[in-house]
């Protein structure tokens, strides 16, 4: 059995402590040790984007980072957006537009959409397509996802710095 080492970090706003082996990825820690299964694993190769989470304010593939690297990090997963107005709008738009079918890409896709709308005022459809091109969806053909993100962008008050 692998030796385990202590690890402390912030998960969705709360400080947590876990013991992890050196080869445990953040995705496996979240899913199989902590039991937060909203972060999905689609490729373990960093290609599909299903496991996208936010680490210290940046989008990260949870399958490509070892948990042991994250001492003191601030990690936000799909479960960490419960009170986030932008995410609530995105979730509503995704469901109303049927911008998800099987739901496996959705957590990662929503985080990518949230990241875009947090940084860019009124992105165009092309810009939305580019931004979510790191997230693979086999069901929708993407158009509904683009529509949903675009709709939220149109409706949101523009309060970003420098916008």
């Amino acid at each position: 059995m692998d030796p385990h080492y202590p690890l402390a970090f912030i998960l969705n706003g709360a400080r947590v402590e876990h013991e992890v082996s050196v080869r445990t990825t953040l995705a496996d820690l979240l899913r199989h040790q902590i039991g937060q299964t909203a972060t999905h694993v689609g490729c373990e190769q960093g290609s599909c984007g299903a496991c996208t989470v936010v680490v210290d304010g940046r989008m990260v593939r949870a399958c490509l980072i070892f948990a042991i690297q994250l001492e003191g990090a601030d990690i936000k997963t799909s479960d960490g957006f419960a009170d986030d107005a932008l995410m609530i709008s995105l979730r509503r738009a995704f469901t109303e537009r049927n911008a998800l079918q099987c739901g496996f890409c959705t957590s990662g896709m929503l985080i990518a959409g949230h990241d875009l709308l947090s940084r860019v005022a009124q992105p165009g459809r092309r810009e939305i397509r580019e931004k979510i091109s790191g997230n693979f969806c086999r069901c929708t053909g993407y158009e509904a996802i683009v529509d949903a993100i675009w709709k939220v962008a149109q409706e949101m008050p523009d309060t970003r710095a420098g916008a």
Partner: protein
Amino acid sequence: MSDPAIKPHRYTEFVGQDKPRRNAVRHAYGRGRFVDDIAFANLAHVAFFRSPHAHAEILSIDTAAARALPGVVDVFTAQDLTEICTPWVGALDHFPGLKSPEQWPLAMGRANWNGEPVVAVVAESRAIAEDGVDLIVVEWKELPPVVGIEQARAKDAPLVHPEFGSNLCFAMTLKAGDVVAAFRDADLVVEDTLDLGRQTALTLEPRGIVADFDPSLRKLTAYHSTQTVYQMQDVFCRHFGLSEENVRVIAPDVGGSFGMKLHVYGEEMSAVAASIRIGRPVKFVADRMESFLSDIHLREHKVHARMALSKAGEILAMDVDDATGIGPFSVYPRTSAMEGNQALRLMGAPYKMANYHGRLSVLFQNKAPTCQFRAVGHPIGITVTEHMVDLAARALNLDPFEIRRRNVVTKDMYPHTTPTGYILERLSHEECLARLETLMDYPRLRAEQAEARQRGIYRGIGIGTFIEITNPGPAFYGIGNARISSQDGCMMKLEPSGKIRAAVSISETGQGTETVMAQVAATYLGVDVEHVDVITGDTERTPYGGASWASRGAGIGGATVMQAALALKASILEIAGVILQGEANDFDLRAGQIVNRADGQIRMSLAEIGRIAYFRTDTLPANVHPQLSVVRHYVPQGTPFDFTNGVQASYLEVDIETGIVTLLDHWVVEDCGIILNRQLVDEQIRGGVVHGLGSALFEECLYSATGQMLTTTMADYLAPLASEMPDIHIDHICTPTEMTPLGAKGVGEAGTAAAGAVVLNAVNDALHPLGAVLRQTPLTPERILKALGRI
């Protein structure tokens, strides 16, 4: 259709179309529960040692070091399973002469493809199981592999299965009319050979199972990412010697399936075997490399086709030779002959053509097995046909719309039987073509294309008509003696709260089944759609049925739910009649309330019916026994399938310096009969189109000359991403089918069916001034530059 109460509803709106899917809400909040999300305290994990060779004899297997690794619970090979499992053969009676060898969960004696599972290692964690796999030592004697289609059918080819004497798994010939005379008398014959590349499913959620065997009762519970719990219940019970009622298969949320999750795989069978051996729950979830190596692949075809035409552009005949490579086994239980069978039968199917000769050769190879996948056979039949039609149009100087208008089966010809035996009830090719021409503003696009060419920009327009097979009856599998049901069932009850719960045998894999079934129930009961809860995907909690494949959910499942809803409504009104001291017929159920049929006045709520019928039966007369749970089954009637039709178009630009194709626009006009939910139908089409665009431009499973798979990551196997995909414009013609009471047909295949064909036609349209013709998909930049003679 015999019930007069059904008719008035047929052309009315289905309630709840504008309500979001309840499952979509769950998934948006990350609340889905997929197989890999299921955990047990005593869960074990299985990983596989896989064949590094495409074709090799197993001389010895040494598992000692793996067994000795702390945390490894069990290690087994095919030889260790002969006592608890029986082998399978992927043959069906309606494909006479189909040959395929016995298959075990793990390679028995010989490995037949790179990636075939050979040894299973069961451990306390997946990581330890993989460590154990690294310690397995196998001695091999390499055998010559069969990789390409030409190689497979060469006279001196090495044999995948020497016992069969050739690499031919199955052959079929179709003949109609007088093909020889038609070609002899034709004014024009066009001819070409197309190479269509092998693809894979790439569901975002990989295959997975948690098998939980309880030795005390010999009861198996399998949490399985499958489209078809009933078929898998049957497979598990028969091959592991369990009683059918002791096998429960549950499909939790399924993260994409598209046909790939219909088939029997050695890894899932091994997980069940492992659970039986150790008496603990065992999980297998494929990683992405395992998915590439062992999920079914699809559509590797080499097709030689000729088409005979008159001067006026009338298609007189087609002569087609289709060879397909299916890997080393015909996949169980649906066979690997169905794809070629449908491809061959769909050739020329939208057209009046009377003469046809088709030959199919299904060939063994040492590559991953291929089997049925979304739009089975359609892209092949349609790509070949539409390519020939465009070649002919060019030779005759006819516009692509015009040649198709002259040939499609017209309104006055229905019911129409194609030369390959498909019975078409009533289709709408002419209306679809007309609508498409308007929708895409065809004259403007042609002008734009001409103007761009002046500037050295090569744009192309591609058009393709199609028919689509939906609502299959027992002709698909039942007549071949497969234990795959074509009927479905629905159990529906009134809850004490007044809400409705329906357990349906159609399964949900993201397409919105549960919402559509709730809409049908709500419409025919007369309740709010949000008051209907639908349960699917559990052999113990739902009636027996066929589940979801071949676009059968809406047409067959919808009709099933409709029958149950009408029966439950009759029962509810009967009790209402007793309580309100009238006749059942005096009342109706509207918007969840019992009302007077005559004046619509509200008399009582469904909740009040529930309260009295379940808790205050003392207030009812003697011998009144409210029947507020009903079960109904529905068997598809009429023709063996219900066909839909449509037409697609692509507008794109080819960079002749780089060979890169940019998709500018895409249109679909299709006719799936009565539409139960417009948004879900459109999104099925869009997702399907993108599947087809991927196969036309990017997706290909590549193997080396020695049969090593070269595309085992998503960086090597290119799939469509948002940045390369166009917006897709959709319109509908509605020709209801008389074969189902709802008038609805399927729509899951339509997008995929013709999207690739129209991209090929558009690229060839773009490059026509340069004299280049593309004949091989996917249309990679390299292939385009080669066709242009630039490399």
